[in-house]
């Protein structure tokens, strides 16, 4: 899981100065090879435009303001959908982790709904909401809900019972027990859920915007396909990748800050 793959190597294995740069060597090499392959005609530009063409297309769209507008729309949809689905998932995770009654009442139902792939609901969602904003928000929220719900629930249920007993012995009230023992104990698992949810968030949004939207990155890509603007199509895909990476990095930074006590995050 995420906690394990971020365990760092001992110092001696590192090239200190290249540390931050080393991860960019492979992507840059791929772009260089790609450029060469396009220029020499090895890869026809109808199949895959040269990186320079993609950048040029990006520059034009940037000047026209279209790029920023579409990125903003997609970003806004992703964030709002994530916030809605994430909060509801977190709330259910808390409730079902802390209360037997709540768990008995809703957990089985939620586990059943989980087995429906949320993207399979697209036709239904279009019937309900049309290609309105709410359709995209609904799908993103639904996709994000489950990883957050499941991991919050799992995190709370697996908090060391000995620590909870300790908290009770030392006279913690329910609120204090939650704040000082249960929530911090569940946090590593909650972060695993957040990272999963971010992946699902982008995936859902791409699909939803491609099928049913009149703005956003996915819509931009579909429009470009209709006019055979392959450079814009590739540009959209690359921007999705960048935004995904950005979201993942942000969650890692947050994780590092909040879980600085965790042995996996301690720098020596």
């Amino acid at each position, binding site marked *: 899981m995420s906690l394990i793959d971020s365990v760092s190597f001992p110092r001696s294995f590192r090239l200190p100065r290249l540390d931050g740069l080393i991860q960019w060597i492979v992507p840059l090499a791929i772009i260089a090879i790609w450029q060469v392959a396009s220029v020499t005609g090895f890869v026809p530009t109808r199949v895959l435009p040269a990186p320079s063409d993609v950048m040029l297309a990006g520059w034009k769209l940037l000047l026209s303001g279209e790029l920023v507008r579409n990125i903003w729309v997609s970003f806004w949809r992703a964030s709002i959908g994530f916030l809605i689905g994430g909060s509801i998932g977190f709330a259910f995770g808390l409730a079902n982790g802390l209360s037997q009654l709540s768990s008995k009442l809703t957990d089985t139902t939620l586990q059943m709904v989980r087995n429906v792939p949320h993207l399979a609901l697209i036709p239904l969602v279009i019937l309900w909401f049309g290609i309105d904003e709410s359709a995209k928000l609904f799908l993103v929220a639904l996709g994000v809900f489950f990883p957050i719900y499941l991991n919050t629930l799992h995190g709370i249920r697996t908090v060391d019972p*000995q*620590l909870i*007993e*300790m*908290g009770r*012995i*030392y*006279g*913690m009230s329910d609120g204090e027990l939650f704040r*000082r*023992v249960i929530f*911090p*104990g569940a*946090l590593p698992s909650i972060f695993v859920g957040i990272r999963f949810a971010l992946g699902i968030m982008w995936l859902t949004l791409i699909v939803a915007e491609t099928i049913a939207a009149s703005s956003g990155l996915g819509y931009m890509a579909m429009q470009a396909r209709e006019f055979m603007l392959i450079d814009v199509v590739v540009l959209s895909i690359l921007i999705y990748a960048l935004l995904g990476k950005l979201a993942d990095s942000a969650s890692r930074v947050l994780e590092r800050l909040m*879980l600085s*006590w*965790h*042995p996996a995050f*301690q720098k020596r």
Partner: protein
Amino acid sequence: MQTALRTSLPETELASRANFAPHARVLREERPAQTSGLPLSIRALRKSYGDNEVLRGIDLHIPAGQFVAIVGKSGCGKSTLLRLIAGLEKFDAGSISLGDAVKPEDIRVMFQEPRLLPWARVLSNVEVGLGRDRSSSDAHTRAEKALTEVGLTDKRDQWPSVLSGGQKQRVALARALVSRPRVLAFDEPLGALDALTRISMQRLLERVWRDQGFTAILVTHDVAEAVALADRVLVIEEGRIAHDVVVNTARPRERGSAELAGLEGSILSHLLSADDRT
């Protein structure tokens, strides 16, 4: 020096014998100067888990400030007795009384696992021990003082994960001590430590007990540890106190002395003979 070894004596008789012993005066001097400890009286205490009758009538009086060790085979109910005394579980019959009005902060328990909060620094972990006084203005100073008592002042801002097993247990001890408890119950607190760390922890336990004068109840599977630390060793068998052994050896005690070794041997043979019978 002579030691008193009696089998299943009523506690009162035992106490009076101790008073007639020639070195009773010495014993009293070894006791903490001002006893903040609470006396503990247990009468006909019973506890079952389902069909499993764990405690079948425990009668016990512990005078204020005494250091009592409890030994017995694994599964004989030592932890259960301790948990009942600490109020962590309900008993089926009998009574436990702890002297005058007891606050929750007056009784503290230390377990084999340190049970520190991994996400709290050492000092905040100690502050947890203040109970309801956690948010008072002198919480920091009191926690720091408790850390000094266990010799870990320099670790106050560390995460528990960087401490050794012995250091973690010392933080747990500081957390238990910070509220100035009047009864301190230990459930095999040194069971997971290596031999050398154990010995230094035993010294530390004895020292804080002498400094603070709480009533100490130590459950241990190590009979040598029991005779080295305790005023009195109780052997539990079949849900009852089968032997009540007074250790009159003066403190500081010399580890491995013939006197302690003899006592240890006789307690061990009790335990083993019980084993043969079953």
